[in-house]
Each structure stands twice: as C-alpha cells, then as structure tokens.
C-alpha cells in the first residue's frame, strides 16, 4: 500500500492477493484512501513567519561559557588574575621566611611540652592521672557531716 514492504513480504502478499478477492478489494480501498489524502492542498507559511522567527531568535539571550564571560569583561578578568597572583606571592613569602632569634627562644621555652610526644599524639598518658573529686559529691556529704 505504501511501498514499504520488504521484497519477500511484497511477493508473499501479491501471491495471496492473486487468489483472494476480499483482500484484493480491501487493498484497493486502502490505496484509494492514500490517493484521496493527496488531494489536501499544502499551505505556505505566511510572509511574516521568517521575520517573526528571526526576531524571536535575536531576542534569545546568548549562551556564554566561563571563558566567554571573562573575555567580555576584561576588567573582571584582570582583577581576578591579580588576586590569584597576590595569593600565590603571599603564600610563597610566608613559607620561605626564616625564623628569627625571638621565635627560636619561644620554641625553646615550650620545648618541654613539645617534647612530651605521648601527650601530644594520643593523650593516653593523661588517663593515669587520679580522677578529680566530683563537686556534687562533696556538696552532698557536707550537710551529713554537719549533722
């Protein structure tokens, strides 16, 4: 009917149609429907269609990626790059500054604490210390003692 059957299917159908009047009639009717549908005229879009379309496309906000945004704002791009450069410079300065004599004295004063590696690393040695007396227990016992 629409010419889209595969060759094998078409031959099989034609073979059947040659012996079946009912199906032959039905196929002819479907073909007639197809031809009738061709009678509907095509319409052309109005003359204003393209103009309106172009206007609508032009009104669309342009999509920009990150770099395009930087390219369209050179001042922002300059400020951002200066900020990054400043951060890198400050970072490199603090890392390379040598210790002065005052700093070394402070470290030496605190060395006794710093050298107690066990305390610094896991606080486990602190568990050996006696438990502090509970303040509430003390307050509970005091009135009894008075009595």
């Amino acid at each position: 009917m629409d010419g889209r059957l595969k060759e094998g299917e078409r031959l099989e159908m034609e073979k059947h149609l040659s012996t079946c009047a009912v199906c032959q009639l039905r196929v002819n009717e479907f073909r007639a429907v197809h031809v009738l549908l061709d009678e509907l005229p095509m319409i052309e879009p109005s003359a204003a269609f393209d103009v309106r379309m172009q206007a609508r496309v032009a009104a669309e906000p342009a999509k920009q990626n990150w770099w395009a945004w930087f390219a369209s704002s050179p001042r922002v791009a300059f400020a951002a790059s200066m900020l990054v450069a400043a951060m890198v410079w400050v970072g490199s300065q603090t890392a390379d500054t040598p210790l002065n004599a005052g700093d070394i004295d402070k470290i030496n004063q605190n060395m006794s604490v710093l050298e107690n590696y066990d305390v610094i690393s896991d606080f486990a040695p602190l568990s050996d210390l006696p438990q502090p007396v509970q303040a509430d227990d003390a307050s509970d016992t005091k009135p009894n003692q008075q009595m």
Partner: protein
Amino acid sequence: MLDVQAGDEQSFALLLHRYRTPLVNFLYRMVRNREQAEDLAQEVFLRVYRAREDYVPSAKFTTWLFRIATNLALNSVRDNRYQRMEISLDAPLTADAEDGEEKKLDVAEMHPNIEQHLIEETRRKMIRRAIEKLPEKQRAAVLLHKYQELDYGEISKILECSESALKSLLFRAYETLRVELAPLVAQRAVR
C-alpha cells in the same frame, strides 16, 4: 544541525527554510488553525535553537524535530478541547480554517466550471473532516506516515511506542478513514 551547534547562524536559517513548510503543514493538520500552527512551528524552532548546544546526534534530526512538534501539537489539541468544552458543549466549530476555505469559494464562483469546484471543495472538506475525527495520536501517525513519509522506526520514536504498536495504530487509523470516506473510496476503488 551540527553547524548550528557550532554557532553558525546561517545554518539555522537554512534549517528554518528547509523545514518550515512541512512543519507548518503538519501542525496545521493537527490543530486546524493556521495562526496557531505558525505559532507552534515558531515554538518548535525556538526550542531547537535553545537546545542546539546540548544536541546529541543520536537520532535523525527530523525525528527530533517532529517529536518536539508532535508533543506541542498534542498538548495544544488537548488544551483547545478543554477550552471548547468550557465555551459550549454543543457550539458548532466555525472559527477555524474552513471559514477561510469557504470564502475562497466566492472567488471561485468566477471560475467557468463552478460545479467542478464545488465538487472538489466538498471532497476536500470530507477528507479534512475524516482526518480531524481521528483520535489525535492516530492523526499524528497518519500525518507523519502519509505526508512526511517518515519510516516506521522514526514515527515510533516520535510517538514513543513500539513499531508493532505503531503499525496497529496506523491500521486502525486507515480503517477509520476508509469507512469515513467510503463514498469517495468506492469511486476510486472501482476505477
């Protein structure tokens, strides 16, 4: 479409030029209103333009284009139906393209063979009404199959159904058309 994706405005203009007539005709036959069909066609192209950067050529461009168009048309047909129901359940449908077609007849009266014109116009009206009466999914299937000449694979992707479901849909649609157009079909089938 890949050129449009690359930002080539000229290619979008070519795309528009190539597909606007088939798209407007498809939408016109779906919604039966020329102005609305053009508005919907513009919406389709605008969506294509907006989605150009995300377009992945996994399917044919026509499949993608008519899938957008079909979805918009089906939504529009449903919206129109509810609007009509709100206005009046029994009101005759006069504010459509048929009025325009009938006005053309006044001009046609100047034609030497007015009787022939009237016959042709009556036939066209019958055919239009038969297509209109189809449920919207069947109508979309027939329009894509008959007028856009898309293959079953493409149409089934557009309508989001299997190929066998599409063939069944098309068979029911053409069967309905055969019955609706029986007087015209009989004339042709006899020839």
